[in-house]
């Protein structure tokens, strides 16, 4: 697979999925604490989102960062626009901005909701088939 194909795949994933999360591992089995926190936040808001694991090929992360100008993982896109990484997503969740942006309902006790969320309880996120390796 060429770098150009990887770039196109990422482009399409961002364009075709209203809520698109790039992370290390999967929402069910995140491979990094920051990715876990961000996936947990989306689960707590009960929104449907697509997720792509960047780990299978280092070029996924390279091309993603080249495209977004954002150096770290996770990266959350909504409506084709970079929202931010773990810190910004957490801040926007706490203020209710994220729920508003996603048209989701803010849980009554945001902190407790994130802590208690298990992926099984919620509608499973759609996983993009990873054809990048």
């Amino acid at each position, binding site marked *: 697979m060429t770098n150009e194909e990887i770039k196109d795949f990422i482009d399409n994933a961002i364009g075709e999925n209203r809520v698109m999360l790039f992370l290390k591992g999967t929402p069910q089995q995140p491979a990094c604490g920051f990715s876990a926190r961000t996936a947990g936040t989306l689960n707590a808001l009960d929104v449907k989102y697509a997720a792509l694991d960047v780990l299978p090929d280092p070029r996924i992360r390279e091309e993603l960062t080249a495209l977004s100008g954002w*150096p770290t993982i996770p990266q959350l896109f909504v409506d084709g626009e970079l*929202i931010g990484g773990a810190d910004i997503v957490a801040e926007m969740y706490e203020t209710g901005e994220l729920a508003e942006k996603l048209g989701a309902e803010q849980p009554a006790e945001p902190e407790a909701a994130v802590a208690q969320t298990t992926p099984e309880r919620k509608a499973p996120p759609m996983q993009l088939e990873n054809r990048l390796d």
Partner: protein
Amino acid sequence: MPSPSELKERIETALPGSTAQVDDLTGGGDHFRAEVVSDRFAGLSRIEQHRLVYDVFGDDVGGPIHALSIKTSTPPGGAA
């Protein structure tokens, strides 16, 4: 291996007038948290604020600096 004081100095040098508090989250010299206060952030979106801090370190983020958690704010009573 980068140290919290090195990161602090780089941030405060690159963003004149800013103050940064940098902690090593794991003690391993590769996961850091930076709380940065600067009036440069006034009027910028969160994305733009965090980019200003990431830009200080360029390719070091993702390299020697495995993770950099950022919290940005403007000085209390400042130009925000």
